[in-house]
C-alpha cells in the first residue's frame, strides 16, 4: 500500500510528486523500502542523506514540516556520526538499534492499520436496520458500557454553560469613593496656586484608577465651565491645565 500521492505543479519546472507521509517514521520506512533492504540492516549514511533531501523537498513545496521530522533528522545525524567514530572497548551496542526497534514497531502499526482498513472494506453496505418503532422516549440514550469520564465531564460543561446562560452574572457596581464635584474644587485650588498644572503626570501617579478617572472628568468639567484651558505641545507630551481667570461658578456644580 503506497501512501497517497500529492502532485504539485510548478510553472516552469516539471511537476514534482512527493508521497504524503504520516510522520518521520513513515518517511523513514518508505526510504528503507526504496533501498530494498531489511530495516535490521539500514545503510544509515545513505538513508540519513535521503531523509534530509526529502525534508528539503517538502520545504521547497511549501508543505508544513512538523517539528517531529526535525527531531528525527537530528537523531539520524547523531547515529551517522556515532557510526563514523571508532567504537570504544566494551561498547557493543549498535547505535542504530533503538531506531530499528522503533521502525519495527511502527511497521507493525501500519500492518495492523491495513488489516483494519480491510475489515472496514468488508463492511461497506452493511447498515443497521431501522424499523418504524418509536423509542420509548424521544431522548437519546447512551449505552452505559460506552459512557466514559469524558462524556461525564462534557455533560458537566454543558450544565454549567446552560446555567451561565440562564443566570448571567449581575453587573457589580463599585461604591462611589470619589465625587467629580470634590475633584473640581481640588483641581481648581491646584491650578490657582500653580498657574500651569501638569495634569497628565498627576493623573498617571494616582494610586487609584477610579480617582484618575474622576480627576479627568473634573478637568473636562473645568474647561466646559470656562475656568481652565488645557494644552499639549505634541502627542503624548505633558498636558498643562491653566486658569482662565474666570471664577468657579459654585451654583453650576451639581452633586456629581
Amino acid at each position: 500500500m503506497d501512501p497517497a500521492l500529492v502532485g504539485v505543479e510548478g510553472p516552469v519546472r516539471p511537476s514534482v510528486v512527493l508521497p504524503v507521509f504520516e510522520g518521520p517514521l513513515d518517511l523513514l520506512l518508505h526510504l528503507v523500502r526504496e533501498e530494498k533492504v531489511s530495516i535490521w540492516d539500514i545503510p544509515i549514511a545513505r538513508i540519513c542523506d535521503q531523509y534530509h533531501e526529502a525534508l528539503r523537498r517538502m520545504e521547497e513545496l511549501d508543505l508544513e514540516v512538523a517539528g517531529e521530522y526535525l527531531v528525527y533528522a537530528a537523531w539520524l545525524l547523531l547515529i551517522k556520526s556515532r557510526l563514523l567514530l571508532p567504537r570504544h572497548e566494551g561498547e557493543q551496542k549498535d547505535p542504530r538499534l533503538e531506531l530499528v526497534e522503533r521502525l519495527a514497531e511502527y511497521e507493525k502499526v501500519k500492518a495492523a492499520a491495513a488489516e483494519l482498513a480491510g475489515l472496514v472494506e468488508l463492511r461497506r453496505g452493511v447498515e443497521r436496520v431501522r424499523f418504524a418503532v418509536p423509542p420509548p422516549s424521544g431522548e437519546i440514550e447512551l449505552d452505559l458500557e460506552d459512557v466514559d469520564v469524558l462524556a461525564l465531564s462534557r455533560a458537566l460543561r454543558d450544565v454549567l454553560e446552560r446555567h451561565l446562560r440562564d443566570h448571567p452574572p449581575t453587573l457589580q457596581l463599585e461604591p462611589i469613593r470619589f465625587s467629580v464635584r470634590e475633584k473640581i474644587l481640588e483641581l481648581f485650588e491646584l491650578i490657582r496656586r500653580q498657574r500651569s498644572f501638569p495634569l497628565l503626570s498627576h493623573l498617571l501617579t494616582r494610586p487609584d484608577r477610579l480617582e484618575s478617572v474622576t480627576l479627568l472628568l473634573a478637568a473636562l468639567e473645568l474647561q466646559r465651565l470656562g475656568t481652565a484651558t488645557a494644552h499639549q505641545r505634541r502627542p503624548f507630551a505633558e498636558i498643562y491645565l491653566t486658569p482662565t481667570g474666570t471664577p468657579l461658578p459654585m451654583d453650576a456644580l451639581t452633586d456629581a
Partner: protein
Amino acid sequence: MPELAGLAAMVEAVLAVAGDPVTVDALVAVAGEGVERARVEEALEFVRSRHEQAGSGIRLEHVAGGWRLATRSEYEGALREYLGYRARARLSQAALETLAVIAYRQPVTLPEINFLRGVNSVAVVRTLVERRLVVVSGRKQVVGTPLLYRTSKEFLVHFGLPDLSALPTPEEVEQIAGESAVEP
C-alpha cells in the same frame, strides 16, 4: 426466478434502513434503469409473502402511500420487555448530566442540583440511586436539612477511576473532547 429474488432482496435492504414508508416510485428510481414498476411491485409481493411464513417476526405493510417493514403486533409484549431491559443498561442525557453534577460537586443536595440544571431532577437522582451509581451521604446542616448525594464505589469501578481526583480536568476535556460544535 433468481432475478426477482435479487430485486426483492434489494428492495428489502432499502426498506430495512429507511424506517419510514417508501413509495414504489422511489424504489423504481433506486432499482435503476430497465426495471419496470410492475417488476418492483412483484418484488414487494415476494418480500411480503416471504415474511408471511412461520418464524418471521417482521411483516411488510402498506401505509401512507408507501411500503415499510414493521414488527408483527403479536410481539408487542416482548418488545416492551426488551426496551425496559435496555433502559437499565443505558443512561439518558438527563441522567448523565445529573451524574456529572454529583461527581464533580459532591457532596451535593437536590436543590443544588436543580439550581444548576435548571430543572427538577428528583426522578433522575432516584434512578441513579437505584442503579447504585449514587448514594446518600448524610444531610446538609441548613434549613430543611436536605439529603447529600455522592457517587458510589460502583461509580468509580464503572469509570475505571482509582479515586475522585482522577476525574478529567476541564483542560483535558477541552483538549480531547474538543468543541461540542464539531458534532452534527
